[in-house]
């Protein structure tokens, strides 16, 4: 399994029937592919859709039914559409049970930076700030390092996405939570040791006795 598949598959295990879930672009989108059997969630696209379905078969889409990246999607039975104010009301108002987003950096307190690299990449925050501030649970799906450098840092050097800490970081090496506001190693990927995770992480990680293997 490649890194992206490990991350997406592990996060998919966090989904429960009835949840309203928003998946960001990139690795987060892959989570939908690993939805456990019998689990039915509502996927929201923040451009105004609940009930987002798979990519349409060739010739079976419509230009007015797209995901937040503007790409064609389908809608499942029971889908609903709405304007952007309602869409972000769902996000900010505590209705969104879970958002899965990509990350550039996460710090030891769980703060996320994922929307800009000053002087280099200024795409705009889009919905990310509202998602991280408003969702009931925030999971970050990202590779553990970028070009060999740790992305989980003692302190983010990039501008923060929100003052609200994330709940979980899932990488291809580990699952990290923030109980009591402190980065804590919860799981290691199959074949990855605690020491390997610590070596690839700049933030000091609490390492409890019971670090388990990531269930996939």
């Amino acid at each position: 399994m490649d890194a992206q598949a490990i991350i997406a598959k592990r996060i998919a295990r966090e989904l429960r029937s009835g949840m309203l879930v928003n998946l960001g672009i990139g690795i987060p989108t892959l989570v939908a592919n690993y939805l456990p059997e019998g689990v039915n969630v509502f996927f929201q696209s923040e451009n105004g859709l609940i009930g987002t379905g798979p990519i349409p078969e060739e010739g079976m889409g419509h230009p007015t039914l797209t995901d937040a990246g503007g790409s064609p999607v389908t809608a499942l039975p029971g889908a609903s559409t709405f304007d952007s104010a309602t869409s972000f009301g769902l996000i900010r108002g505590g209705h969104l049970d879970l958002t899965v987003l990509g990350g550039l950096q996460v710090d030891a307190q769980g703060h996320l930076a994922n929307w800009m690299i000053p002087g280099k990449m200024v795409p705009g925050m889009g919905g990310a700030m509202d998602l991280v501030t408003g969702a009931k649970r925030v999971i970050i799906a990202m590779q553990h390092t970028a070009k060999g450098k740790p992305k989980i840092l003692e302190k983010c050097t990039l501008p923060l996405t929100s003052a609200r800490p994330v709940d979980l970081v899932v990488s291809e090496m580990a699952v990290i939570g923030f109980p009591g506001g402190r980065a804590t190693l919860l799981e290691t990927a199959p074949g990855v040791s605690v020491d390997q995770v610590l070596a690839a992480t700049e933030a000091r990680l609490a390492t409890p006795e019971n670090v388990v293997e990531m269930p996939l």
Partner: protein
Amino acid sequence: MKTITVQEAASMIPDGASLMVGGFMGVGTPHRLIDELVRQGRRDLIVIANDNAKPGVGIGKLVDAGRVARTIASHIGLNPETQRQMISGQMAVDLVPQGTLIERIRAGGYGLGGILTPTGVGTVVEEGKRKIEIEGKAYLIETALRADFALVHAFLADYTGNLSYALTARNFNPVIAMAADTVIATADNIVPVGLIAPDHVVTPAAIVDYLVANR
């Protein structure tokens, strides 16, 4: 989302609960739920709604039975019983401009701390509130409002909880559905999933907790 009986729905609501109730002079009110609350003897309720309808109608039945400890509403002029209980001190009544009331509820449901409105500036409504000036114009800071339960009534529901409303029976319903910890809906018609067009769903299934079955 779970489909339950009206008895089960009413029994989830404890004495003293705060309820947002849909409807405008009883139009669009979940009447069966109200009737059942009266029947089950629920009391000390806090009722947030546009109005108190009139004696014998909708929320008016809770008032008639003396079950409302406090109401937050924009208009009680057509319910003399509410006015009587207010004057006698039996019921507390907070009167809020209708546009402010619906925006406070919306703010509660949309994750906003509140809104800035010119309505009420220079009147008794501004008493005790923070005022703020933006580009030379004064606004009141009106804070968000939420409730324990939203009791909504729809025209169409499907079995996942998607709701759409009929004509002027829409009123407060879709707004309160966003602003409560638990959302209970009744509907004139409950149809199989997929029969309400996505564009015609007004309240998305994901925010409705319980749907009351029709007999």
